[in-house]
């Protein structure tokens, strides 16, 4: 099957969750995002890769309404994206644990802001403590944890919500390989289990190919979509599988900016 056919098959009959049309973002005169248009399908796992500083984070910030767009629309379920209406979660690139809350209270934070019933808050918190292996550290404070443990707290806080849309901005950059592989698998498991839509931003090509159903490659600033690559490999995927390597090399070629 050619790439063209693969792409056509992939897009056929999918329900659009997030639609981005003509998205443009300028900081004064600096054009960061240039006329980007694409759809994210319901329940899709989409990875965006691109060189550092190409505007990946800016895109996420527009989507989550942290910064206004210069032009263009971002619609979620046909309505302008808005965190107060849409069920979103966001794992930031920076460590975003809340320093005055204990590990368990950090995990409860999102659930409480979303006004989930108390028994659900407790149940989800327990599940997440188990999942990220921080049960023993539940009453610790972020300052007492290592960077990777902090990132696990943040991941737990976001997974706990069973969000509709999960936005992840290079979430595993700080973690060691073992933990990264483990949490990548956990992410896949949770995604398959709750069927949320995941938008995962990374500059790690291998990670993108391992996780995604579809990879969008962004070019240098101002960012445009250079290429779309469908990853139709069965899971669990194997880094050494020739088919995997082929796609990885293809993405590497597409992203090559040097």
């Amino acid at each position, binding site marked *: 099957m050619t790439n063209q056919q693969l792409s056509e098959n992939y897009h056929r009959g999918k329900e659009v969750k997030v639609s981005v049309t003509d998205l443009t973002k300028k900081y004064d005169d600096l054009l960061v995002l240039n006329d980007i248009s694409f759809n994210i399908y319901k329940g899709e796992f989409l990875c965006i890769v691109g060189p550092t500083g190409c505007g990946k984070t800016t895109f996420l910030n527009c989507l*989550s*309404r*942290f910064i206004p767009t210069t032009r263009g629309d971002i619609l979620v379920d046909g309505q302008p994206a808005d*965190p*107060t*209406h849409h069920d*979103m*979660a*966001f794992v*930031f690139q*920076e460590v*975003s644990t*809340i*320093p*005055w809350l204990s590990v368990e209270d950090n995990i409860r*934070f*999102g659930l409480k*802001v*979303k006004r989930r019933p108390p028994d659900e808050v407790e149940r989800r918190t327990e599940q997440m403590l188990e999942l990220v292996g921080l049960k023993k550290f539940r009453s610790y*404070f972020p*300052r*007492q944890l290592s960077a990777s443990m902090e990132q696990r707290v943040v991941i737990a806080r976001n997974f706990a*919500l069973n969000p509709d849309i999960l*936005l992840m901005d290079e979430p595993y950059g700080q973690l060691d390989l073992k933990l990264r592989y483990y949490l990548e698998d956990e992410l896949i498991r949770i995604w398959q289990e709750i069927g949320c839509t995941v938008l995962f931003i990374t500059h790690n090509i291998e990670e993108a190919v391992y996780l995604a159903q579809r990879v969008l490659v962004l070019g240098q600033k101002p960012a445009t979509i250079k290429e779309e690559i469908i990853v139709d490999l069965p899971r669990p995927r194997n880094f050494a599988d020739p088919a995997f390597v082929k796609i990885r090399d293809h993405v590497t070629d597409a992203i090559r900016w040097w």
Partner: protein
Amino acid sequence: MSTAHASALEAPATSRVKGYWKEYNSSVFSLLVFLLIWELVCRLGFISRFQLVPPSEVIVVMIEKFWTAPPDGATLFTHIAASMTLALVGFCAAVVVGVPLGLLMGWYKPVMVLVRPLFDAVRPIPPIAWIPLAILWLGIGIEAKAFIIWLAAFVPCVINSYIGIKLTNPVLIRVARIYGASNWETFIKIGVPSAVPMIFTGLKLSLNAAWTTLVAAELLAASEGLGYMIQMGRRLARPDIIIVGMLTIGFTGALMSYVLTKIESRIASSRRL
């Protein structure tokens, strides 16, 4: 490297204690020399009794003042109680108004735009310059004095709360926003807790300002209070009374700061900050 390592191993705890004792002894020594010179200067008649009395007499007067009212009309405890009441009323009122105002100014732009010019206009005026106006408006009772202390304590409360909330980590604000928290909820759940350490610094500065202004405020007609006590000492030409008053002001102020610091470290340790 290796020598530093070895000396660290060989230096037992006792040598550190010894060093501490040495320092402590030198401090005590210099203090004793100072008191001795003071005592001698007075005893040898270099200076009039109406200007300075020897430290030995100051100590006696201080002890006596615990239960005798004359010559300034009240015992030391009455003075302390009067001054502390005044300072705490002014301080608490300043905290109640100043901290929320500073926090709101830091979070809500319109509040900032409304309040800032007025605040900046009032800030450089020394609180004691308000005394004449305070008397015209509020008379010479406790209200006028508390008002002066309130003014002095108010400024650091506002400034530190403002800075504290401005320093909120923007990522944490975004964490709350992405979960759909309203601006007010983000303010309460993220902004205010993250400003707590700065607020406490403000409270300490504010208490300090309140206590410093106390003496000036008690220059207004008063019948008790530590400021009044030293004022009476001047009128009666009793330097012993003045010095006892001054020392008590120092001790009491230090004690209040200490209590506030204790409360702060309690809160900080419960938050592991």
